[in-house]
């Protein structure tokens, strides 16, 4: 009851359905929480790179937890259908747990393990739970861009039974253990995924008892009908027109053009990526499921943010792309770092959407998460100390997000991805790596009426007696975020070793004993002309050191006298913070 009607007129069953819908969302939130609590990989337990959802027997997703990973949004919605097709309905039995890391039938690369569990109530199959988590290692070349085909990217687990009526497939476990760098962690994560579905299942059965349900058909139809109607209403309110958007980004060895044509119809929106660059030779290609996920996420944020994710609320967003373009890679293209391109899809879509609905979407931001993986090992140039070890350490980090039509961009905050960074104290407990610096990068946000969010600096080394390979997964080295409506570009990514020896934005690179990697992650772009910026905000930015004195003068036209006054005030603690 939010507003006006004095007399509740809603029928009792509608109210019950509303309650059940909310409950199902709570069930999947709890399912996701169980995964965070039991997972082993820092990517899941600290960063929240996971998703969880519940499905009806027709494989339609009814509810999905809001987690850090829009990339799983649509991808996981489609996954359960693939499982049923591969396993065969007649083989779906109580106590079963299914597994895959198929990039095309799961969520886009081998490093995402998807687990599906059928849910039985009074011996009757009533639905499915599915969850996905990003694991730190799956063997092969390690998490990075360097593979020339999927075969080099690690162990492939086709859709199969992990547990058959409660009995875990020990052969599978042995094969997994024998093929990955952190076997305990991975096996632990697979168990955590199974646990997470189990928790969801328990809560669902409790709900079915409480509401005396024998199946999910009624509540399923209610959810899907209402979501479809609400989503289509949002779309119908938009002008029926089309626009194109494009963005050029670094790619691996040569720049990549992302192109999209956005068509708004009565009841659906279509993103067509025709004209986008073809496949890259290295592992930054994107299966279409993942492109769909991010295009759809971008549109939902902009026009229908309040409608929960499910099969029907996602259906009106159609995404197509030519086969073997970089956003529709097919087997056996290498796809490990599909996120590098996938995270740039929203800014591309917004380039088009801004032409139709001005003053709605932000300027371009860092886009791609600034992730890297460190493979540490005992030094090989000289005898290593006894206690030197091997370890795989993955970290997630964010550049700045783009300025908005009426506010600054967010500093060091992910968009479109929503994963969290790992505490550096937790990271340093996972292996002999040392994060020497992780802090904001002044002057990296594009100037404008509203300033882009700041990127960040990081410095990475390892404990004495070790050397490492550094897997870089960065973009925006040569193509910084572009300003909107006269705002300036954000600062580009830079990467080098502490002795100035250059490094590449992507790929596995050796770092010898004693050296560190010096990173500067990109800032978001500005929005609107800098001349219109509120002088108080310029002063505030200078006081906080978001902008240097030089930038205040050069980019924002602040006078030398005003700058000196502010610097003096800070020294004496007289400034208004």
């Amino acid at each position, binding site marked *: 009851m939010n507003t006006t009607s004095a007399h509740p007129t809603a029928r009792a069953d509608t109210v019950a359905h509303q309650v059940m819908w909310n409950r199902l969302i709570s069930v999947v939130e709890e399912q996701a929480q169980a995964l965070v609590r039991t997972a*082993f990989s820092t990517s899941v337990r600290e960063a929240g790179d996971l998703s969880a959802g519940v499905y009806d027997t027709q494989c339609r997703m009814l509810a999905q937890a809001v987690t850090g990973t829009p990339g799983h949004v649509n991808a996981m919605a489609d996954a359960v259908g693939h499982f049923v097709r591969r396993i065969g309905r007649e083989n779906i039995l109580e106590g079963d747990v299914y597994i895959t890391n198929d990039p095309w039938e799961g969520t886009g690369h081998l490093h995402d393990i998807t687990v599906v569990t059928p849910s039985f109530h009074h011996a009757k199959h009533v639905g499915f739970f599915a969850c996905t988590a990003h694991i730190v290692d799956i063997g092969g070349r390690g998490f990075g861009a360097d593979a020339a085909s999927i075969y080099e990217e690690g162990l492939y687990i086709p859709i199969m039974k992990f547990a058959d009526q409660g009995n875990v497939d020990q052969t599978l476990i042995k094969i997994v253990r024998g093929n990955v760098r952190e076997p305990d962690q991975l096996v632990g994560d697979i168990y955590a995924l199974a646990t997470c579905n189990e928790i969801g299942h328990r809560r669902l059965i409790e709900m079915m008892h409480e509401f005396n349900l024998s199946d999910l058909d009624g509540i399923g139809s209610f959810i899907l009908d209402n979501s479809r109607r609400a989503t289509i209403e949002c779309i119908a309110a938009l002008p029926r027109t089309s626009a194109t958007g494009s963005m050029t980004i670094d790619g691996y060895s040569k720049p990549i053009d992302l192109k999209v044509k956005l068509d708004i119809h009565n009841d659906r929106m279509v993103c067509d990526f025709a004209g986008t660059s073809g496949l890259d030779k290295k592992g930054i290609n994107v299966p279409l499921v993942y492109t769909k996920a991010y295009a759809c996420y971008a549109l939902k*944020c902009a026009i229908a943010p309040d409608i929960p994710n499910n099969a029907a609320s996602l259906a009106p967003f159609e995404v197509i792309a030519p086969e073997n373009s970089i956003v529709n890679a097919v087997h056996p293209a290498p796809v490990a770092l599909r996120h590098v391109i996938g995270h740039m899809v929203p800014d591309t879509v917004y380039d088009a959407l801004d032409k139709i609905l001005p003053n709605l979407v932000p300027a371009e931001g860092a886009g791609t998460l600034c992730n890297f993986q460190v493979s540490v090992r005992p030094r090989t140039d000289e005898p290593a100390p006894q206690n030197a070890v091997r370890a795989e350490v993955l970290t997630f980090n964010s550049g700045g997000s783009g300025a908005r039509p009426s506010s600054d961009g*967010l500093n060091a905050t992910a968009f479109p991805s929503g994963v969290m960074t790992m505490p550096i104290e937790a990271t340093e407990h996972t292996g002999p790596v040392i994060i020497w610096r992780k802090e904001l990068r002044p002057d990296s946000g594009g100037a404008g009426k509203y300033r882009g969010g700041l990127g960040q600096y990081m410095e990475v080394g390892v404990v004495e007696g070790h050397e490492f390979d550094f897997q870089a997964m960065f973009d925006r080295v040569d193509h910084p975020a572009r300003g909107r409506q006269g705002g300036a570009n954000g600062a580009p990514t830079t990467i080098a070793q502490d002795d100035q020896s250059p490094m590449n934005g992507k790929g596995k690179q050796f770092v010898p004993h004693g050296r560190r990697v010096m990173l500067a992650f990109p800032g978001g772009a500005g929005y609107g002309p800098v001349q219109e910026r509120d002088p108080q905000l310029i002063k505030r930015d200078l006081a906080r050191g978001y902008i240097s004195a030089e930038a205040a003068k050069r980019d924002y036209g602040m006078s030398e006298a005003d700058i000196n006054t502010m610097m003096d005030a800070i020294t004496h603690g007289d400034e208004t913070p």
Partner: protein
Amino acid sequence: MTEDASIRMGVDIGGTFTDVVLEVGAEQFSIKVLTTYAAPEDAILDGLHQVCTKAGITPGQISQIIHGTTLATNALIERRGAKTALITTQGFRDVIEMRTESRFEQYDLNLNLPEPLLPRQHRFTVAERVDASGQVLIPLQRSDVEALAQRIKTAGFTSVAIGLIHSYLNDTHEKMIRDVLTSQLPDLMISLSSEVSPQMREYERFNTVVANAYIKPLMKSYLGRLKGRLNNEGVDCPIFLMHSGGGIISLENAADFPVRLVESGPAGGAVFAAHIAARYGLDKVLSFDMGGTTAKICLIKNQTPKTSRVFEVARTYRFKKGSGMPISIPVIDMVEIGAGGGSLAHVDAMHQIRVGPQSAGSEPGPACYARGGEIPAVTDADLVLGKLDPDNFAGGSIQLSTANSTSALENKLGKTLDMNATTAAFGLSEVVDENMANAARVHAVENGEDLAEYTMIAFGGAAPLHAGRLCEKLGVDRLLVPTGAGVGSAIGFLRAPFSFEANRSVYMRLSDFAPNVIATLLRELATEATGFVRNCDSQASINTQYKVYMRYIGQGWEIPIMLTEAQAMNPDAATFQRLFEQDYATLFGRVVDGMDIEITVWAVNATTPIEAVEPVELANQHTTASSDSTRMLFDAALGDSVAAKVVQRNTMRTGHTSQGPSIITEDETTIVVPSSRWAITQADGTIDVVRKG
């Protein structure tokens, strides 16, 4: 509690009211006065005199005062702390600003993140580094700290937080910084992260120490003034403070660790509810505490409030998780939302009524207080809907103006939404009740609980007005409104034990299990925790509870495992493993085979015994309570006004019943019994509100 503490006073400063409860032997006297923001001790003195007069004693006869306050929380929410600097490890200046680098609301393109407590120019770094095993990688140079001390002096900071990377493993650099600063700036207040919150995860730890430093000057000066003022009144008894974990610490300890006072009022409320739960032998209780500014909801299982190691204060975005700042201290786990009697309503762009979190507070208060408030608050809606009697609010001490409420509702809601005042009040009331019901549902879900099995215990000035409707929304069949409901937290203070939880992060694998190290560590923690309790009472018997947090190696989240004293003092790996696997299987269904297990956090809680409760025998003779009047009451479930009997609570004797719709009035609050419920008075004076049929 000591035996001689025969006249005890509990004082709770809330956002709107200051509640004072005096317990003279078995008798209880209470008073509510408006909180005086500028000098909160004024209201305490005012209340003290009033309640002493009521009880017929002089202030000098009081033998013990237990105090809880929302001042610490409010200072954090309203950013009214001291001029504070953070000193941290070079390279990590922005930890408290960068937070988790994520957005707590995924689909809002215009989301803004809360500002850190300290702006960037108030955060300083020093060259130093400790690694993940506690070894020093870069030694701290004394001269660097001396130079920094000059900058701190020049800029005029009065309080400093020190938070260094991995200091929970090795605190020597933090201590060295303190020593240098103290020698150069003796008046500077200093807080160390290794003392305030020795826990892994830099964002939570730094934020906690910053919060402590930020409110320390304010709280220290307030507590000093309070003690002085009370002494002037001839009150020379010991004063203790309620802490967020549901126990009591000394005034001196509280002044050093004021962050431990955050949410102390609500913690007292949870203790109060736990005490009632024990009297009624209830194992599943939902405590619902609604005051002037916020509503607090807490799950109480087996008569023990649920506790946690981290919580979030000052949520900025519809109280959404992640929108506030994390504080890692031992705390009673509850959800708090901006829904109180003073919460203000407005109409948003989508023509929806929104309520809170802004509150009218005590100044100007809701429109009906006639102190200049023009925006309708929850209390205004309650008045217009007939839940409150304008002539009998707070025992008649504040005359309410129905005309003011009506015009505020019409002007701020009715005009935009084309509603009359009653419909606007209904809409406002339903929105705030639904907000609270949702918060309760989410909290229950996060804890894997089903509220249908729960009994609600309602207290706080505004709760009994809304609890009946909340029970309807949540499917809760039974509601208890104990006596003293209007001042529940303050009564809870008098039920709380002296207690303190000491904890430390030390990593140990079961495969490297070192019984001697463990026994020593737990003994040290027990000594530390016991020391805090001894500061309060040098004689009392003290119980120690041992708790370790365990997980499979590689997991990020631990589960708490309780140890007996014998298990703690003679630790062995097999027992630890068995206890862990039992609890893990209960929580998550199955254990993980062949994985090593580690212990990450060690905690010892020292506490004086909780006093035994007298069980309440349920009333079995039913007589209809007499009523001297009726008034029109809007029943939300029916969507219409109904004639409700008005019953004076002080006329209701054991076994007296009142069928809904009815209104049971008392000085400090009003119990609304909806048409769907009936009420019966139990032997201890509790009103037991039960679903009909």
